[in-house]
């Protein structure tokens, strides 16, 4: 047992840090470190910079144009990127559909889609949930009927993150209504520009437009866009969820947010003293910091186990639960830290280019919205209750 990183891993960390220092555009860095909104253009620009360096696919094997990094290097990369203020890489292509196409797609699909994900030429979104199929995903109803060399898709998907920017969507669709729920599902790739695809925005509690409904009305999809075998989509969906949960703990970004919380608490006052010296606040902050320390080690334990057996295991559910609890706790402490200054709610001030009159203190502007926004974390990607079901079945064997 040795919890220190090897000299090679430390050198790698240094390499990542100097790259970020040199290549991360300062305007983007500023937004991320201040908790402001990162634009789609920022995200694409950063992915393209990484791609030029050959780091566009940090979690992909070399044969698909990825870095071939082991889980520990992927973790170091994410940690350094988050600390430096790099935007989160879009997970839909890199962590979701990419690994599915690599594992189950055919050569034509791999050649067509994978390079465009790395180069940020395509923006993917995920068509899983439906109004009647949330945690019970297998009850989904969106129908794909085979007619010769194409499918005709009808139905409605919901909670589609950033679909308004996407040009491709990967969908779970029902191809055999007679089969048992899990057995009649297929995995389809759909061009968002196909006639009959409609994106309708959903406004969330932070008043942001992050998720959408996507409606399909007689959408014609060529059969070559079927991934793997017809009616085997559930297997691919489960595979995808496993990969989505790698680095789900969000250690790097939580460390960054903890540092921001400490900066905020040092500038706020209570009874005329800096808030970080208030014993009640300091205890709550320390509690989260300590849980994050523990989760970091738990995360490394899971990573080193994964490095040995090469597939994400059910322990990722533990990381998801604890990681999102910590993210939510940090965002809550952050808004509590500024007291009544958390009340002004000006969404326009979350835009890095906002030029209107700033309120004091400027760092308070995004805090309430972020707290509201992050309530999603314990709901998405398999709600934390579903994660507990997974732990119950897969780890505890109950």
């Amino acid at each position, binding site marked *: *047992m*040795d*919890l*220190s*990183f*090897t000299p090679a*891993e430390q050198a790698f960390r240094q390499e990542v840090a100097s790259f970020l220092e040199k290549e991360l555009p300062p305007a983007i860095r500023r937004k991320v470190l201040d908790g402001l909104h990162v634009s789609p253009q920022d995200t694409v620009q950063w992915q393209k910079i990484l791609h030029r360096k050959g780091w566009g696919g940090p979690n992909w094997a070399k044969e698909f144009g990825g870095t071939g990094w082991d889980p*520990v290097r992927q973790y170091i990369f994410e940690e350094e990127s988050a600390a430096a203020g790099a935007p989160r890489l879009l997970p839909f292509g890199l962590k979701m559909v990419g690994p599915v196409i690599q594992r189950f797609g055919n050569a034509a699909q791999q050649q067509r889609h994978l390079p465009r994900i790395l180069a940020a030429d395509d923006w993917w979104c995920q068509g899983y949930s439906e109004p009647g199929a949330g945690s019970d995903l297998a009850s989904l109803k969106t129908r794909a009927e085979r007619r010769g060399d194409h499918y005709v898709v009808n139905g409605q998907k919901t909670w589609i993150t950033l679909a308004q920017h996407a040009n491709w969507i990967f969908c779970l669709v029902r191809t055999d209504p007679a089969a048992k729920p899990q057995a009649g599902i297929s995995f389809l790739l759909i061009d968002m520009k196909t006639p009959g695809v409609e994106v309708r925005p959903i406004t969330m509690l932070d008043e942001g437009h992050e998720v959408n409904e996507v409606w399909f009305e007689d959408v014609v999809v060529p059969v070559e866009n079927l991934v793997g075998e017809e009616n085997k989509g559930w297997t691919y969906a489960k595979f995808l969820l496993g990969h989505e949960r790698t680095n789900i703990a969000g250690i790097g970004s939580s460390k960054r947010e903890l540092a921001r919380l400490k900066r905020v608490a040092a500038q706020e006052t209570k009874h005329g003293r800096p808030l970080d*010296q208030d*014993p009640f606040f*300091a*205890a709550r902050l*320390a*509690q989260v*910091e*300590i*849980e994050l*320390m*523990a*989760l970091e*080690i*738990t995360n*490394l*334990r899971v990573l*080193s*186990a994964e490095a040995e057996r090469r597939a994400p295991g059910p*322990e990722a559910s*533990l990381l998801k*639960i*604890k990681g999102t609890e910590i993210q939510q706790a940090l965002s809550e402490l952050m808004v509590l830290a500024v007291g009544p200054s958390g009340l002004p709610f000006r969404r326009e001030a979350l835009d890095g280019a906002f030029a209107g009159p700033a309120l004091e203190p400027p760092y308070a502007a995004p805090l309430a919205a972020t707290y509201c926004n992050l309530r999603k974390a314990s709901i998405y990607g398999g709600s934390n*209750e579903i*994660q*507990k*079901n997974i*732990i*119950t079945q897969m*780890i*505890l*064997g*109950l």
Partner: protein
Amino acid sequence: MHFNLTAEQQLLSDTVQRFLAKAYAFEARQKIVKSKEGWSREIWAQLAEMGLLALQVPEAQGGMAPAAVETLLTMTAMGKALLVEPYLASAILATALIRDLGSAGQQEALLPAMAAGEKIAVPAHGERGARYDLSRVATTAARQGQGWALRGKKTVVIHAEAADLLLVSARTGGGLDDAAGISLFLVPRDATGLRLTGYRTVDGQRAADVELAGVAVPADALLGAEGQAFLALQAAFDLGVAALCADAVGSLQATLDATIDYTKTRKQFGVPIAKFQALQHRMADMLIHVEQARSMSYLAAMKAASGDARDRRRTVSAAKVVVGQACRHVAQQAVQLHGGMGVTDELAVSHHFKRLLGFELSLGDTEHHLEQFVAANAARPA
């Protein structure tokens, strides 16, 4: 960065677990707890035989120090078995103090004998009113002839009755709360003027309150330099906290395992109660606590012997917080999920419950260590 064990470490862990499973099964353990001495010299001799009493002894005296991973594995196995012998007090705390403060002569006289199981020494440091403050020492040592006279009261000295020697902290200078001015003395348990009031602790160990009514000890009873024992005490207790965390993780795992087994066999409404989601999610929460606690026991073990005192203290305090909260949650839930059986004396689970309470009250509770963590953070170099 890896979590693998060497072949030797794996062998040690397997050996200890196999030994305890055989010699220290729950019924045997209960018999030991209820015996007159309240612990077993036979078991102690076997721990010595396996080399476990030498883990914190320097190589020069035939030991294995620092043996961080070996100590971690040993403590976790002992926690699982609810061991009540003076392992933490003698083989870790007192051994580390003698190792770090003792003269060559003192080390040579004591450490090999302690490693062989022939001598037991325990620290006698805590006092009523000090709570968990390490520097609050009211007991005094005054010069008397060539030696010293010790006066004061020590409370809850774990395994004082089993000890041949007490490592008594006493003030030779400074005020009540000063770190400077604390000295350590080697005091034979049967010294004149030393009185023990022994009892059992909630978790089945033996302990005693110790009264020192002018106990005379020679000049060479002083361990380390006069008035300079505090940093070594702090380091030894940090090592102890890390070891205690590992012990608790063993107990936590056993508690979770017992709860899973019980809910799989106990039937109500015609099905095993493990089928009820309200119970399943509680056990998932228990697992998360256990794994977070295990992670911190690793981190604490790796940092427990670090010379960077601030970083060491910050880490072991963080560990004690995470493990302490896990102990409270897992122990309370385990008893609840065992229903009526959980509140009987009959099953191991209620004894783990008491062990986990013992953990919370030993070497600083959760609140104390949360405070220590905040203090260590504040002292952090900018």
